[in-house]
């Protein structure tokens, strides 16, 4: 990761077409301005990570998987062992 120091009012130019400007710094909050072509997607990172985590959650969301992970018997296994 490239690490730089910038003051409010300073800018970065990415690939000659994306500009990131430090608008103001207030305590632990920094206001950034981003100028980029419309097709460049700009997202808060935690939004993207939340999306990915949600997708992983839905993909793994079966009772069988949860039973298995917790080392519990699933309903089917209980039925089977009750039959013995």
């Amino acid at each position, binding site marked *: 990761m490239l690490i730089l120091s910038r003051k409010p009012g300073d800018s970065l130019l990415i690939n000659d077409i994306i500009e990131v400007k430090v608008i103001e710094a207030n305590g632990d909050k920094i206001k950034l301005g981003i100028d980029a072509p419309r097709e460049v997607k700009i997202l*808060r990172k*935690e*939004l993207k*990570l*939340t*999306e*990915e*985590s*949600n*997708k*992983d*959650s*839905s993909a*793994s*969301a*079966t*009772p069988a*998987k*949860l*039973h*298995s*992970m*917790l*080392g*519990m018997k699933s*309903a089917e296994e209980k039925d089977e062992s009750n039959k013995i």
Partner: protein
Amino acid sequence: MKVLTRDFGEVEVEKEDIFTFEEKIYGFEEYSDFIMIYDDDFNGEYVWLQSTEEPGLCFIVANPSLIPDYKPDFKKEAVAALGKGTYEYWVMMVVKDNIQDCTVNLKSPVIINLDTHKGMQLILEQDYPIRYSLFKGRKES
């Protein structure tokens, strides 16, 4: 009304059981209506957030009481979006084959208003992890 689900068969629900997520769940913006399905095996520790619109869409959410020192600050944003009322919050869980790889999202809890029947997923200002190991160091049973 009956809701068809992939994992729980046909479930009978009342209108009040349905939570509307006008603010949507990130990555699943086409879906807005969900119900909470409780499985007695899990004692309210793990609950299913099931879509009423898509039988195959379901999330596992964990009870935040399972996480020590977890104090999400969401009241202001929640009341603004979902109204006043009694609130419950849950964390999205990712289940893995190995219990030590299982994680919960503490940064973006699922918040539901039990009175207005509305829900949302809120990304907190606080610095909590998106993939917190729920069972750190716990051996497989």
